[in-house]
């Protein structure tokens, strides 16, 4: 009964000062909206990257020179195709091993130009990385061993160079050297703002000749089974270190990449949420401020309520409810605004966003908590008012 009265009075107080209540809520609305939208963007980015890494398959082992540790400088590779042969012998199956050497190159077809990431790879690459062709065919083992100048185009490179025309069998130049197109990839989309369809795959031998080198950047292995993937990684690294005594090598699995990326993006999301949380804090201070004004304005009413039998607690609960009502209504509006903003970002920009139920529950909980935290001091002050003094106030 008393609680129902407190609700009624709190609602009535908010209605009586619509503009003031609205402006105070706005601070909470903006804070909650910012938290929900930014957490949504962080979550969406994390999910997208995780999907992409998972798309690589769980048995993938990536071997690169150097140590994968925070603070270690990138190492220039000394690996060559001979290393690939050595690794293939350890794995026991050449089709499970892929190598890459990459370089940004200007690509032309007739008068059209595109800037693409040229990847010198082996014929096993579509199997190891699960890349599907839209048209044509990939190159063969003999293409790789003879260094034929053939190329498979990423979706956006193909579109830029040939538009709607079929590129299969046509000539392009990469870094001024002629290549013939044998196939195109299915689109992959973007990742962290990078267009993954701007790749061109060519036989690694042809790429090495074009770049005037015999080295490779790194290699990847599709392990036969998941259980012995760590064991395999150790064997490969040991063999490579034996061949290159001056260089460290690292073998990482998909789980390790996911773990590292997840940590980084989790921290990023946390930082974004914390920055947005500061505006929620400022909104809370606004609530506190307006509640103190409300207590002062209604001192006579507090005195009267006490005279007719309201306990300090009854008065305190009434003002606390008013504050919590302010922040939770603001919180719900802020959630709606934040979800809308996140969905718009997801739809209209390359940045992905995903709304999770826990972030909404958290936002609602936090806005209620802000009301309690920032309402408790004004409420206590109201509850402790001396009825004699309060009744006398003009």
């Amino acid at each position: 009964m008393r609680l129902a009265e407190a609700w009624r009075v709190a609602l009535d107080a908010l209605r009586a000062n619509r503009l003031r209540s609205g402006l105070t809520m706005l601070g909470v609305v903006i804070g909650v909206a910012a938290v929900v939208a930014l957490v949504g963007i962080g979550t969406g980015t994390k999910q997208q990257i995780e999907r992409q890494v998972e798309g690589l398959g769980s048995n993938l082992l990536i071997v690169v020179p150097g140590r994968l540790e925070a603070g270690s400088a990138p190492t220039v590779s000394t690996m060559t195709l001979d290393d690939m042969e050595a690794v293939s012998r350890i794995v026991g199956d050449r089709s499970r091993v892929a190598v890459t050497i990459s370089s940004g190159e200007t690509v032309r077809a007739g008068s059209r130009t595109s800037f693409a990431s040229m990847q010198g790879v082996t014929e096993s690459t579509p199997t190891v990385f699960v890349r599907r062709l839209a048209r044509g065919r990939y190159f063969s083992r003999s293409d790789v061993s003879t260094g034929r100048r053939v190329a498979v185009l990423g979706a956006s490179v193909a579109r830029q160079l040939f538009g709607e025309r079929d590129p299969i069998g046509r000539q392009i130049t990469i870094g001024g050297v002629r290549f013939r197109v044998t196939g195109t990839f299915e689109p992959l989309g973007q990742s962290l703002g990078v267009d993954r369809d701007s790749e061109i795959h060519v036989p690694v031998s042809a790429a090495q000749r074009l770049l005037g080198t015999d080295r490779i950047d790194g290699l990847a292995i599709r392990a036969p089974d998941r259980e012995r993937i760590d064991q395999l990684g150790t064997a490969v690294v040991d063999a490579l270190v034996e061949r290159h005594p001056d260089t460290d090598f690292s073998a990482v699995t998909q789980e390790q990449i996911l773990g590292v990326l997840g940590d980084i993006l989790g921290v990023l999301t946390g930082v974004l949420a914390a920055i947005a949380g500061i505006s929620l804090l400022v909104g809370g201070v606004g609530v506190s401020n307006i509640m103190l004004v409300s207590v002062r304005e209604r001192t006579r009413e507090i005195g009267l309520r006490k005279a007719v039998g309201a306990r300090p607690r009854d008065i305190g609960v009434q003002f606390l409810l008013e504050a919590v009502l302010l922040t939770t209504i603001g919180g719900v509006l802020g959630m709606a605004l934040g979800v809308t903003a996140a969905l718009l970002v997801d739809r209209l920009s390359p940045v992905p966003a995903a709304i999770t139920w826990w972030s909404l529950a958290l936002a609602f909980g936090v806005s209620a908590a802000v009301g309690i935290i920032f309402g408790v001091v004004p409420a206590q002050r109201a509850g402790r008012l001396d009825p004699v003094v309060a009744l006398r106030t003009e």
Partner: protein
Amino acid sequence: MTAAIVAHGVSRTYELGGVSVPALRGVSLTVEPGDFLAIVGASGSGKSTLMHLLGGLDRPTAGSLMIRGRDVRTLSPAEMARLRNETIGFVFQSFHLLARTSAQDNVALPLVYRGVGRRERQARAVAMLERVGLAHRVQHRPNQMSGGEQQRVAIARALVTDPSVLLADEPTGNLDSVTGRSVLALLESLNADGVAVVLVTHDRDIAARARRQIVMRDGEIVRASGEVWTGGP
């Protein structure tokens, strides 16, 4: 029958900027059930301070004060609130009605804090408004009523809890003389029904309507007159 309020040697001193200002010095007073008592005095005589003490809004700094058998010095603020709710009805000079709130809801307010259900609250509020002659004003808000009507609403609110003592602080102070007289007549009729009435006023003519008078000056009772009421109505 036990006395409703017993004050014995009650003093109340305020601390104002490190200086002790005595507002009440050793006042003894008994309010019996069914009593009709006027406390008269100029402003600053301590009559309002005494009324606040008798109504359980304040505590004495010295002396003993029993309201319906309970020593107010031993009560917590919450217990004092409950004692006020059950025992005392207040009527103020400036009415102290809640704005934007109907007469009915204003009258029902003390019942909210007593924990009475909504349906019963409304029924009792309407009955009390009928008793003070405002059956036609149940849904009106204070700003839609005259001063006399507002004070009647306030009186109905004071009575809705069925208190043993009605404390009226200058109840006619903001009213014209005709309206004031009708409000006084209402208080007299309520007293005739058995409610003890304590009337605080600076007006000796009004005080004369009470069965006994207490005159205050400088925080002390300087004269007490009239019969001490000891029986029922």
